[in-house]
């Protein structure tokens, strides 16, 4: 099936997310869409899938114009989509999720569970997806959940399969498996639209590459193009892919965790006895696939969740039972993973957000009153220093782009004297220009002797920043390795390899 997009435009109010996009996907090709966060890739795909209505332009399937008013229409025309955030019901079984919307029934709508399970098993074997129909989805690793999503599209006989940033949640090995599956599908004549912002992947699997920038297609090339060329197309200028970083001798351990255990509200242990030392003047990166306990580890270090076991010391003093505020006042800086819910108050101005955890200090208050002049001066200085692109200091933070929002958070955390900086996913959803800037600031903190703990699921970021790399899998630190460790080895660790008892085997058992 051939899919053509002509002059497709989508506006949200006055904001143009997609601007006159032209794109052709041939039968049986893997067409890669490359673009920065916020470039408009998901918006384009949502229009193709009937979730959003185009403002202008048309979509042609095999030369025939179509219009989709709901995903049902798109599915009927043979379009399938695996969303960036999975569209699976966590408490349902695999078979139920796959069947949903196309249930096998007997008589007056009575579910035929056996038929649904059989269908999953057959397709799973045909495409070698190794998915167990009766497993509950929420108990499966993300990699398997993604294969369930692919199965969903396959049972609906998708001729064009859209994969929206499918590799964001995968280990390098799982990514390779996904690529193998994509090649098998391609061999059967399925066209695939593969969306990503990771350059390496594009070149590994794509037949053709279209680059989207600020809602426009800025070029279509072949996978022979170099990474630097692609990066320049994507960002619109030459980018520096490495962070300038000098060698530096690490000092004594500043932040230490011993045997930390965290239990989630459902009673499962998510951090299973983690011990870590972050030393002065070094960057320790915690690498790992999302959902292996990193989030909870960071929250327990900050005191946002209580550790059920273990201890935390800061510069030799036990802070296990301190409140989050006490920990911040001892000099821990915190850049949270989900900035819009934990990092700032969207409806507050930049000025106020810049003093969210500082307003009690001498500098910004006089008795019970705020020192508004000092707060305003502070805002001007920080906006200048951190290159926050905003119309004014009184603009609401919610109105800024992701990169500038993150700069507000980083600026605030770095505007008090720190002994430890903890940053989770510091550049998620941030444009390349801001990524460069934030990375430089983090390294600058390290060079001043701050102990830095970074949690990141992006290996590129880990390599750019780390002095040492701790790899987490299934709630544990499986190993701590140097920054020169090869990608494949870290990939194996991220999948639990080298961990004597379970790990890799586990993954295969479930799959």
């Amino acid at each position, binding site marked *: 099936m051939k899919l053509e997009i002509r002059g497709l435009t989508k506006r949200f109010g006055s904001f143009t997310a997609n601007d006159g996009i032209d794109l052709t996907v041939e039968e049986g090709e893997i067409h890669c869409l490359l673009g920065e966060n916020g470039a408009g890739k998901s918006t384009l795909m*949502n229009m193709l*899938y009937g*979730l*959003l209505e185009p403002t202008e332009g048309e979509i042609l399937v095999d030369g025939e114009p179509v219009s989709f008013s*709901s*995903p*049902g*229409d798109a*599915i*009927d025309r043979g379009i399938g*989509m695996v*969303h960036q955030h999975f*569209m*699976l*019901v*966590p*408490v*349902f079984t695999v078979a*139920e*999720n796959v*069947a*949903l*919307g*196309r*249930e096998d*029934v007997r008589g007056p*709508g*009575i*579910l035929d569970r056996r038929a649904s399970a059989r269908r999953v098993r057959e397709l799973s074997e045909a495409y070698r997806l190794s998915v167990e129909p009766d497993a509950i989805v929420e108990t499966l690793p993300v990699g398997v959940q993604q294969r369930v999503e692919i199965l*969903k599209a396959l049972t*609906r006989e998708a001729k064009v399969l859209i994969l929206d940033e499918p590799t964001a949640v995968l280990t390098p090995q799982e990514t390779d498996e996904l690529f193998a599956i994509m090649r098998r599908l391609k061999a059967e004549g399925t066209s695939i639209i593969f969306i990503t912002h990771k350059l390496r992947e594009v070149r590994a699997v794509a037949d053709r590459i279209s680059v989207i920038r600020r809602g426009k297609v800025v070029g279509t090339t072949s996978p022979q193009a170099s990474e630097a060329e692609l990066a320049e197309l994507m960002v619109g200028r030459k980018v520096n892919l490495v962070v300038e970083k000098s060698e530096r001798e690490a000092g004594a351990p500043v932040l230490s965790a*011993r*045997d930390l*255990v965290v*239990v989630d*509200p*459902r*009673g499962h*242990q998510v951090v*299973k*006895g*983690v*011990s*870590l*030392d972050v030393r002065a003047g070094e960057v320790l990166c915690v690498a790992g696939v999302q959902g292996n306990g990193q989030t909870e580890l960071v929250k327990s270090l900050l005191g946002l969740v*209580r550790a*059920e*076991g273990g201890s935390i010391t800061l510069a030799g003093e036990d802070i296990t039972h301190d409140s989050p505020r006490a920990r911040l006042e001892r000099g821990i800086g915190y850049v949270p993973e989900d900035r819009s819910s934990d990092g700032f108050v969207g409806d507050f101005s930049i000025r106020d957000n810049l003093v969210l955890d500082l307003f009690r200090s001498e500098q910004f208050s006089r008795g019970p009153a705020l020192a508004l002049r000092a707060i305003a001066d502070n805002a001007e200085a920080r906006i200048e220093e951190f290159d926050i692109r905003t119309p004014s200091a009184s603009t609401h933070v919610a109105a800024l782009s992701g990169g500038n929002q993150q700069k507000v958070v980083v600026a605030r955390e770095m505007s008090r004297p720190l002994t430890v900086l903890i940053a989770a996913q510091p550049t998620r959803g941030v444009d390349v220009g801001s990524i460069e800037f934030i990375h430089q600031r983090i390294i600058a903190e390290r060079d001043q002797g701050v102990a830095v703990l970074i949690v990141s699921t992006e290996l590129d970021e880990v390599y750019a920043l780390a002095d040492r790399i*701790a790899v987490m899998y*299934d*709630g*544990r*630190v*499986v*190993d*701590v390795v140097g920054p020169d460790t090869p990608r494949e080895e870290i990939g194996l660790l991220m999948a639990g390899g080298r961990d004597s*008892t*379970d790990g890799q085997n586990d993954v295969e058992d479930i799959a």
Partner: protein
Amino acid sequence: MSTSTAPRTASGDVAIRDRADVLRQVKTVVVLAIAALLVLLFALSVDDPKIYWTLEERARLDTRRTLNAHVVAWSAFGYLVVALVLAALNRIRRGWVAGLVFFGAGLAFYAGFLMWFFADQRELAGIGAISIVNPLPQTVLYATPLVLGALAGTLCERAGVVNIAIEGQFLMGAFFASVASSLAYSAEAGLLGGALAGVAVASLLACFAIKFHINQIVLGVVLIALCLGLTNFLLGQIPTARENPVLASYLNQPVTLDPIRIPVLADIPVLGPALFNQSLLAYLMYASVALVTWLLFQTRWGLRVRAVGEHPKAVDTVGINVARRRWSAVLLGGVFAGLGGAFFTVGSTGAFDQNPSNGQGFIALAAVIMGRWHPIGATAAATFFGFMLATRDQLSVLTKIDSELLSAAPYLATVIAVAGFVGRVRPPAASGEPYLKS
């Protein structure tokens, strides 16, 4: 520093007990200790251990039997002490065994309490003392509207719509059941009228919650106030029997449902008269429980409804209309809630009087939560609350406990049950959240 040395279980977890688990044990121990202590007091305060009892619904002088209160109370105490020791040593494993142990503890407490309550009566001339009778027939009677209301709540929440307004559906159901029954001179017509009124309230709920995305808690409260005011107003418009006997008889003198005794089944001891000597409404209630369970878990409609309550966007992306599923679940819920409302007029006392349901819609709501959003669980919880109401009635014949306090007891039990025994539960993930297409 890489891997930790802490001891681990087979699944790789660190071998420590988490706080929630310890808390659960502490809670169990405290509750059992209080129960044991109270039963000890009960046992000690019994002077004259002779108590009359019967398994029938009403005591008759010729069939009642006697028992020794000391024996019963001290055995109950013994059971509770054993359970307490086991709990303190953390020897009660979670699961159905624990469930049985706690059910037994509840029974033991109930028995000990009854011994104290019925012992040492001042004998009345002619009949002697008042007997303990079988509480189950009344339990089922009281549970009927609660179960129906809880089914309505379960259906709505499973589809992702919070229904606080069960109470309002009860009121409207009760009123229009009375009117329909009076007009048609048929109790069955009354049931139909009640169900329709329930659906009418449900359609208001659905319209504002699903179409206009109104906050569902606020909406529910407003609907209850509306239904209470409306039924009171309409009641005021109906002339009393003295003012206009003809009109009054057509509008608010309903035919009520008679008990239907099912032969053979009703002769089963203890349970027979409780389950199989009830009105049509109770039999409808049994059927409704089975129907809702079957619909939710065995049919395509149910799968989609549950999916909509958990992850509406996922349902949308496979081409299913989210709003339509929600509407259908809420409207179907309205049928059950309306039938539950009919209980308060044609199912029991007859004519509609001000606020006949008197807060029982909220108890039904509690049953939804205590039953963990499962129709069977909700039924069990509603039956428990029915049992509390029946016990209140049976105890009110003696004045050992202040009657006002006694009538508050079922509600107190609700609070304790919901707060103490619900534990870790997960409501449907999208419950209460309107679905906005992006």
